[in-house]
């Protein structure tokens, strides 16, 4: 069983599928945030966690982290680094959602679109979803073999000039 699991997660096509799924997902999810930064800032405010002075800077930067990491995963540019950053972002989302779930605060996650005023996300559903994504990032991070379809030649990355990290 253990060997079968190891063989499954060691399969380069499984790694590729996880990478394309995560990359595509994060590129898709950043579009509305980049198009509407003011709405994004309001969503961050709605979490009631971050101090006011940090909200706009986060609203400006976060979608571009999603975009650049997502593109890096899709095109196989520093895929492990991109997955580590996405993993970190998901960890922050999971902590933020759990904190609001514990204190019973209603909020709009803003993940794949912005809700109208008075409409909120279901935090339990968000938590499960983010944990699944978190697991998928681990597949990309822990993968040890040669990755399929990366921007590199003969296992050497064109940009870093070394094996894609």
């Amino acid at each position, binding site marked *: 069983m253990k060997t079968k699991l190891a063989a499954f997660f060691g399969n380069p096509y499984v790694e590729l599928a996880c990478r394309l799924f995560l990359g595509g997902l994060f590129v898709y999810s950043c579009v509305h945030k980049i198009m509407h*930064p*003011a709405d994004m*800032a309001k969503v961050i405010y709605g979490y009631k966690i971050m101090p*006011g002075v940090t*909200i*706009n800077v986060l609203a400006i930067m976060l*979608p571009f982290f999603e975009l650049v990491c997502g593109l890096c995963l899709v095109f196989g540019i520093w895929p492990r*680094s991109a997955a580590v950053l996405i993993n970190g972002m998901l960890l922050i989302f999971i902590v933020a959602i759990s904190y609001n779930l514990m204190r019973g605060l209603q909020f709009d996650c803003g993940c794949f679109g912005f809700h109208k*005023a008075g409409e909120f996300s279901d935090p339990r559903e968000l938590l499960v979803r983010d944990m699944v994504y978190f697991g998928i990032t681990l597949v990309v991070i822990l993968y040890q073999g040669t990755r399929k379809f990366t921007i590199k030649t003969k296992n050497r990355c064109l940009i870093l000039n070394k094996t894609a990290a």
Partner: protein
Amino acid sequence: MAAIINTSKGCIVIALIAIALAFIVNALSPRGIALVGQWDTAKGVISAKAKHDFINQAREIDLPKAQEYFNEGVLFVDARAAEDYAAGHIRGAISLPVDNFFSVFGPFRQAYPDSTLIVAYCSGRECPDSHELAENLENAGYVHVKVFIDGFPAWKSEGLPVEN
């Protein structure tokens, strides 16, 4: 160890590219926002301070001032959705739902001249709809538009006159 160093280097490069791109796009985009917004409800309606923000703090009035205007018979307009208005509103207020503004504005325009003093409200300091309505009214020619920032919930909880 080498893998960790390579991964860390990649993280730093990706982060720097993302940060640079984010601030360049925000500076160039007409939808860009200020580096610091107004997120303190004690100071008024919250706002990301976008380049073309309709929130104008000069219009804002608080509960005592709104009460004073109400006692003077000033016209109140409700920016919330029609169903919220139907569930309860400031007595005598007229419904002008901001999401449906242009289809309900015609009769209002004919009934009230440009010089009418108008107080717009919605559901409090986290609600920008009253400012958006005020902006629409000003664009239509009204010159004395105020925004009651505490909105219907504060009015109701103070026991001030409401109706369904």
